[in-house]
């Protein structure tokens, strides 16, 4: 009985808020079609064999068994992705924070200029210029510079030598990584109430370091969280940069990330079931990581 009346209440609520749903509808329809359904679909499709032409065929855990037990390239792509994410993610996060902090201490006009300078690489996909910098002949800027200095005496094959490709990709990824997260942190600093610093000084805060721990980080937790999410997304799903820069596939799969692997199976071989299984693993890793960071930040903020 009680359940029924509650249900009726909910219905009444829904009817009362008709207008709200109407306002939401245009966005939600597109959002459900192009974000919710694709993400939700990756789950069932990951358990099938599906080539886009025939009907998907249920194969149980076979995709995952293949991935973890016999797909050597997948295992190496996980290693590459983790190395890549561990190097680009935290470094770029700290850089975003540090640069935003330093910029905040600048006079107004310099703040505008510096923000533009650091943000500009992420504006458009203009990293092709790095191909000229890392070019493998004597005409490559890095090669000619290093030869001039006498560090090396023959041009290094930055873009094709298996020893360098991952490093090169990481440098370029770092270069383009000061995006929305950077702007959020930059804004977060600007938004801290100056009164907080005064109060802190009265309570015995002596230096910039203490100020950072006791005032800045606690009052910027939401922005820090936002920037962390952006950073996780860009470091774990990177792949385009590597594909365009060091080729696809890269030498010895040295810059072959999980994302590239999914791309390979999804768009090159049309094995959608397998590609979905790969993406699902990536989703799960990313989801737990963002939870972990949220917990960590809450602890810091007290």
């Amino acid at each position, binding site marked *: 009985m009680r359940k029924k009346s509650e249900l009726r209440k909910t219905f009444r*609520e*829904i009817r009362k*808020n008709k*207008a*709200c749903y109407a*306002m*939401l509808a*245009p*966005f939600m329809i*597109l*959002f459900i079609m*192009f*974000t919710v*359904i*694709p*993400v939700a679909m990756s789950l069932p499709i990951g358990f099938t064999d599906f080539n*886009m032409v025939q009907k998907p065929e249920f194969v149980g855990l076979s995709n995952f068994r293949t991935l973890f037990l016999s797909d050597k390239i997948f295992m190496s792509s996980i290693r590459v992705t983790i190395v890549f994410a561990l190097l680009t993610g935290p470094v770029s996060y700290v850089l975003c924070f540090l640069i935003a902090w*330093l910029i905040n*201490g*600048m*006079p107004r006009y310099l703040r*505008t200029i510096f923000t533009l*300078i650091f943000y*500009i*690489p992420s*504006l*458009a*996909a*203009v990293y*092709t*210029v*790095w191909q*000229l*910098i890392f070019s493998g002949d004597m005409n490559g*800027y890095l090669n*000619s510079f290093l030869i001039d200095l006498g560090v090396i005496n023959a041009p290094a094959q930055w873009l094709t030598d298996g020893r360098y490709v991952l490093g090169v990709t990481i440098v370029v990824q770092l270069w383009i990584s000061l995006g929305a997260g950077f702007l*959020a942190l*930059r*804004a*977060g600093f600007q938004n801290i109430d*100056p009164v907080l*610093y005064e109060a802190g*000084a009265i309570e015995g805060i002596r230096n910039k370091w203490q100020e950072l721990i006791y005032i800045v980080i606690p009052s910027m*937790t*939401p*922005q*820090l*969280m*936002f920037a962390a*999410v*952006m950073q996780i*997304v860009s470091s774990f799903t990177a*792949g385009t940069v590597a594909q365009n820069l060091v080729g696809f596939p890269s030498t010895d799969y040295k810059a072959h990330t999980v994302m590239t692997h999914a791309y390979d199976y*999804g768009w090159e071989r049309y094995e959608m079931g397998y590609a*979905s299984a790969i*993406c699902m693993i990536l*989703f799960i890793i990313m*989801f737990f990581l*963002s939870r972990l960071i*949220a917990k960590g930040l809450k602890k810091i903020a007290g």
Partner: protein
Amino acid sequence: MPAEVKKLKESNRPAGRKHGGTALSFVFLTILGLFMIFPIYLTVVMAVKPVEELFVFPPKLYAMRPTLDNFRDMFAAVRQNRVPFSRYVFNSVFVTVSVTAVQCIFASMAAFVLAKYRFPGSRMINGVIVTSLLYQSSVIYIMQYMVMAKLHIIDSPLALILPAAASPLGVFLMRQSISQMPDAMIDAAKVDGAGLFRICWQIVIPNQKPALMTLMIFAFQAAWNIQGSGVIFREQYKTLPAAVAQVASSGMARAGVAMAASVFMLIPPAVVFILAQRYVIETMAHSGIRD
């Protein structure tokens, strides 16, 4: 005021920081900034370098005889694809304008009700949007492709516009910003008998200029860079980034042309960002995820 407090207060006023610290951070930022800007500078230099200077050894960091030949060649190079260069520009402008307009309108409407009203499902939708920030990237392209195939929009401009138009990031930023607005303003309009749609357009949106500008910049930037590889096959629907990628992949001899194309790609979003930076920073201050 005790000396300590005064000192710290001064050190935190952005414009009046102690000179030593400011100078040091200025030097640090400048060095790092040079590293950031150097490739951009090189892009511009390479774009105005005549072909014969590309193979000079050692490579020069400036153009001895700057020329606009590369820009001219860029128009000619893509023309060999039987589609005139202007077509790619038109496609990109069309896609960018559509995505930006649709996203701004839809996202504002959704963000407004999500920020200011409680109704069955509102909390869940908010949660889904925050979570989906994780999934808005290339990870879902493959699955999106399947949806688009079902809708029969592959190889049409809709395949470029619709997925980009429903960005959760836009709604999220807008909602954060609108929730800072005092309820009193909305209530006053409600008393006047205005419907939700009218409140949104006449009260809320005019008040949210910074957030709207931010949304516009992000939408513009994302849309301007849409390459559409995998969903667009007909040459006449390809966008500028797709054309640029084609030129860029044709080797060193075309490097100058590729760089000219990069410059061409970079200018519109850079101009938009410069014009609207102030608004962006204002909005991003509310971007935080509270949970």
